[in-house]
């Protein structure tokens, strides 16, 4: 999975949770930039990513990932290690 594919996947999962048609994300996007992306949505997003990509976040990652770039880095890293 390329980084861009991961980005699109995360965006579509977030859109589903927020009940939007689509959400535009970039590496620099932070939760407060997207209306409705609160801490509970964040938890749901992380769980959805785990299920969709068969990975598992650590507790601090669920809590601390600050922007979309960090999320993508972490996912990329986990997917790579999985191989």
């Amino acid at each position, binding site marked *: 999975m390329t980084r861009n594919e991961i980005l699109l996947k995360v965006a579509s999962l977030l859109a*589903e*949770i927020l*009940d939007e048609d689509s959400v535009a994300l970039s590496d620099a996007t932070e939760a407060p930039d997207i209306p409705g992306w609160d801490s*509970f949505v964040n*938890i*749901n997003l992380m*769980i959805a990513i785990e299920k969709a990509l068969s990975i598992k*976040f650590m*507790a601090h990652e*669920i809590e601390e990932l600050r922007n979309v770039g960090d999320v993508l880095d972490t996912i990329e890293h986990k997917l790579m290690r999985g191989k």
Partner: protein
Amino acid sequence: MELYLPPSPNDFLERLFQLSKVASLQDRMTGLAALANFDLSPVQTKKLAKVALDTAKLLSQLELESFGFQSSPVLVLAEWTADHLIDSLVLAGLRRRILFTLTLGPYGLLHQALLSEELKRGSPRFILFLLDIERRASLVPIVDSNASAQWARRTQEEIEQLAALVRDNWKAVPIFHNFFSMDGTIFGNHEVVIDRGPAAGIARLNSALLLSSRDANFLLWDLNALVAKYGRKNIHDLRLWRNAKLLISPDAAPLAMDQLAALCGAILGMSKKVLVLDLDNTLWGGVIGDDGLNGLRLGPGSGDGESYSAFQRYVKSLSERGVILAIASKNTHEVCVTAIREHPEMLLSMEDFACFRANWNNKADNLIEIAAFLNLGLDSLVFFDDSPAERDLIRQALPMVAVPEIPRDPTYYIDCLEGGRYFESVSLSSEDEHRNLQYRENANRSAFMSESRDLSDFLRSLEMTISMRPYHPTDLVRITQLINKTNQFNLTTRRYSEADVRALGENPDNLVLSARVKDRFGDNGLVSVVIACPDLDNKSFVIDTWLMSCRVFSRQIEQSVLRSLVHRARSHGALYLVGCYVPTTKNHLAASFYPDQGFAAIAPIGETLPGAKWWRLTLDAYDEPSLLATIEEF
């Protein structure tokens, strides 16, 4: 983790949108309840819950009840995050025609919340306590062998004290959950044996809570059973607990809330009473008309056969605890009867079914007939049928009937039926255990009646004995049960907990009477309850509650109870009996009861519900009826 609901329809949003514009609020609520019976995504859940709660704001409690719904405000006092459970609870309620409106109390401040006058103004029906398991369990010492027992006792006392605060100051039913161990054990397999450590303490506490829930009168939500069935890691995500104090992970919310709603539903009288079963591929594998007796899969020899046997055994146990069984099958009657009588592996017998409809008619018509025959509403029925087409038909034709989505593999039939928590009860009385027998005896009475010339002839030949007894503690469970589930002959439909009934019964100023009925066909048990409280200023007794089981309609029981009530009220020096009729969607047959018995209409007394009609009987003017039963007064 499945709720056995059919998949969400593709046009869910369109349907929801159309429903939100439906002018008839009754049709709208019914439609919303039907939508709640699909397997919805979190987003869909949220949207449906919002429309339901918005609609509920337009409706008074009485209007909701007249639509066959119950409204139920819940105060949540939480030491862990519950916000993500609310929408799921609203939906789980909607599936049972209960409208939960939730208020979250101040986080972590249980005692303060219980003293709050502001929260009290919300008049909650239930107070749900969500306790921090980890904080309490971390206090279990492992040093000496008494420590886990002491910890369990202290925690039990803490819970009982909270329950007592609710009981003394609120008109609400407290709900507590039991505990599970987040840490596992300190000592491993041997922990519970040596009785030290958190798992040992929690095991002790959980069994202690079973007893205190009865004595301290709170409802116990068996969270631990959920954890045992689905696995702790599927119910509880430790990361989310540590990060955000979510005890129940978002994925498990629909399931957990469904179980909680079922528990509340039992108190609200919304549990189901009848299990209507199909035969082919439901009670046995194969089609009797095609495969013949020897071609059926049932009993040892195949996995499926074992599963059908296990399902029959489960259904039989349900019947033994008081769930009424009925058959609705598209089949030739004689072929089915032969199969049930002659197949050596059949566990259920013809005598287990209170009503048997094997014919080629439309199943919706059969269900309507079954409900009418049993004298129960269609909303008392659960329809269990392997055919998706029949299920679809019933869902559309009779939306008030519960229709679980049956798995294709019979291995999971029990899981599906059990998981739906349709027949949840909060008490078990000896009447429950004899219910099927009583309904069968009733069928005998019906046959007998059609042979009798007229009603009084019939009543005389029944050789009835009616025993009138003042409140006795041994009747507490049955009286409470009748109060909470009788809908048809129920003048006021007030629901009371065991503690309420005990308080009313033990007050010597009140008249709390029960009637038992026996006849030549059997013992009907305790079938009627009346509660009257004195109004000294007006020299009268006011009838707070009067109800009677539908099994004994039209048998002069109500006249016998009235006679007893009149005599007892007179001996207390009263001059009048005052009663009121509060209409609901189900009790119209009692609407003219008071005037029929010679009561005269009067102006409403005190605080009164809209639609209520008030009546008064002057005891001096009471005409003794001629009764065709032997009356015993105790």
